[in-house]
């Protein structure tokens, strides 16, 4: 909770000290990112080409958009590991509308609506059902994947019209739409997280639930909205995904949930809640994209990807704990 007040403090005290900057939760990840980019550029100068950088950002756009929302869920002390199957289901909904009605707005609405519905189920089960979020989202991960298989009967959705694919492959002034959407949503989340009542409540609920309850905060509503937000963002991401891939497979999104949590945690948001920011989620997503891209450029076989991801998660949470002990944080 002390972190949530930090921005205001910073403005008041005359200038930003380096130490205070380094205390921000995103600091280690950002430093790591800069170091990594430098290292990869030295190893292969094709890394720093605009085309490659833009491609990295585009490839993590889906991951980043979802991570921005899951970040809020983790901040308020819960977790969501159903996002992979949710992406598939939203893509199926959006794809079905796209192939029958065309356009961009209707498929987008379909995807967002489906996501919001799934997110609402998650939120309902966690708040009213009082089931721990790890179990709810684990069950939903499998149940939703089953729904996808049942609804599609195993057939892919192909032939997505070009106007629907705009968010995936369209460009504006040379910048791809996925990147634009990602950065736009990032700015929105930064504003919401710091300046909206809900955003500040998320920190409070995650930082110390009991205190938040005594303070009279609407804990259930705060958490419920966080899960619905995940659904909405997954819906948006599904249209980006569909645009980039051109068709919807039955296993769309499989394994994504792990990368999303990894991005949030690696970027600096604490898994116990109350500490972190949208910047952490974005940094984490970009970091993962850079690492995976870098691995390919270095010729590391793809089968080692999961090991790298797992190792990074452990490294990130360990560093966070060690950092807090060294710096002497009370949080």
């Amino acid at each position, binding site marked *: 909770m002390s972190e949530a007040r930090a921005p205001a403090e910073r403005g008041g005290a005359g200038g930003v000290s380096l130490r205070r900057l380094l205390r921000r939760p995103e600091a280690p990840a950002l430093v790591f990112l800069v170091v990594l980019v430098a290292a990869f550029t030295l190893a292969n100068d094709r890394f720093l080409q605009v085309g490659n950088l833009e491609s990295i950002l585009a490839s993590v756009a889906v991951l980043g958009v979802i991570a921005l929302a899951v970040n809020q869920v983790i901040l308020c002390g819960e977790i969501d590991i159903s996002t992979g199957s949710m992406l598939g289901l939203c893509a199926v909904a959006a794809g079905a509308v796209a192939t029958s009605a065309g356009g961009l707005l209707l498929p987008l609405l379909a995807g967002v609506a489906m996501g919001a519905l799934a997110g609402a189920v998650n939120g309902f089960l966690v708040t009213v059902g009082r089931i721990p979020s790890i*179990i709810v989202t684990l*069950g*939903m991960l499998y149940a939703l994947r089953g729904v996808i298989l049942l609804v599609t009967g195993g057939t892919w959705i192909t032939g997505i019209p070009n106007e629907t694919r705009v968010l995936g492959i369209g460009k504006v002034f040379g910048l791809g739409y996925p990147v634009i959407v990602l950065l736009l949503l990032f700015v929105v989340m930064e504003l919401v997280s710091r300046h909206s009542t809900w955003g500040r409540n998320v920190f409070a609920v995650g930082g110390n639930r009991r205190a938040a309850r005594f303070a009279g905060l609407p804990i259930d509503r705060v958490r419920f909205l966080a899960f619905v937000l995940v659904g909405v963002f997954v819906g948006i991401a599904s249209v980006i995904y569909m645009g980039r891939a051109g068709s919807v497979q039955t296993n769309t999104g499989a394994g994504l949930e792990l990368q999303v949590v990894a991005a949030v945690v690696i970027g600096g948001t604490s898994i116990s809640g109350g500490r972190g920011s949208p910047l952490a989620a974005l940094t984490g997503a970009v970091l993962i994209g850079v690492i995976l891209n870098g691995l390919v450029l270095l010729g590391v076989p793809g089968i080692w990807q999961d090991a790298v991801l797992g190792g990074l998660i*452990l490294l990130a949470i360990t560093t966070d704990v060690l950092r807090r002990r060294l710096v002497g944080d009370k949080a």
Partner: protein
Amino acid sequence: MSAATAVLRRLRFSREVVLLGVLIALVVVMTLLDPLFLSPTTLLNTSRFFVEVGLMALGMTLIIITGGIDLSVGSNLGLVSVAVGFSYAAGLPLPLAILFGLVVGVAAGFFNSVFITFLDLHPLVVTLGTFALFQGLAYGLSNADAVSDFPAWFAYFGQAYLGPVPGQLILFVVAVAVVWVILSRTSFGRYVYAIGNNEEAARFSGVPIRRVKIALYSGTGLLVAMAAVIYTSRVYTARADTGLGLELGVISAVVLGGASIYGGSGTIGGTVLGVLIIATLQNGLILAGVPSTWQLFILGVLLLVAVFLNEFFRKSEE
């Protein structure tokens, strides 16, 4: 006080009795759908499929009672399978390879416990990380390949019979007995419940929390390794993806059996019933001709319903 104890005892009996009732109901339904379901051969064959999940569920029960969780058991299984198969293919004699696999399983569990106890990290995110790490190591070290030319006697673990009874079922029964004794008759078992009920209070009463947790996660690692050897022997192939997705079934069985995900309660009997119910459901559905695409959905819903009921009625108890 004694009236309350009597009622509490009845409540505890209630949960297991309800589960037993559900199991019987399921068996009846499955038999109606397929008369051959109730034949001894079919039942015994069904038992071969749930031993691996059952062994892991035993360890998971204790972990969940302490309020922790272990999402890495499935990946650990794949890692052990690869360790056994590929060290054998590299030239290690098979008995040593199997021993090596067991060591790897325990080491993996110990690895989890280090992060959880010494660094005080939340088991959820630690085992999420090791879920990816172990799986990735298994894929990478095996190069996504498989080892299949084991000597004939290796099939013994997963495919042998003692009379009409599958060998691994006997092993499972022994394991259930051992863990049950540990949990309900030893001070170690009392420590486990104490940690789950209130870790701070347990620490003040002198419970060696760190040692207990290390033992729990490492012990689960051993159970996972045993399950891995049986599974590998049953399908006669060592592959990295052997255990993928099994953690859902394991956690579902424990939760279905009555353990609270917040810790403090749970029994071996309940877990065993949970394992049996899920196995009956899975096997019965396939025998009845229900396409496997329904299974994912049903399992996910089952987990949600089971936990909901657990927590809903736990609240009304208080």
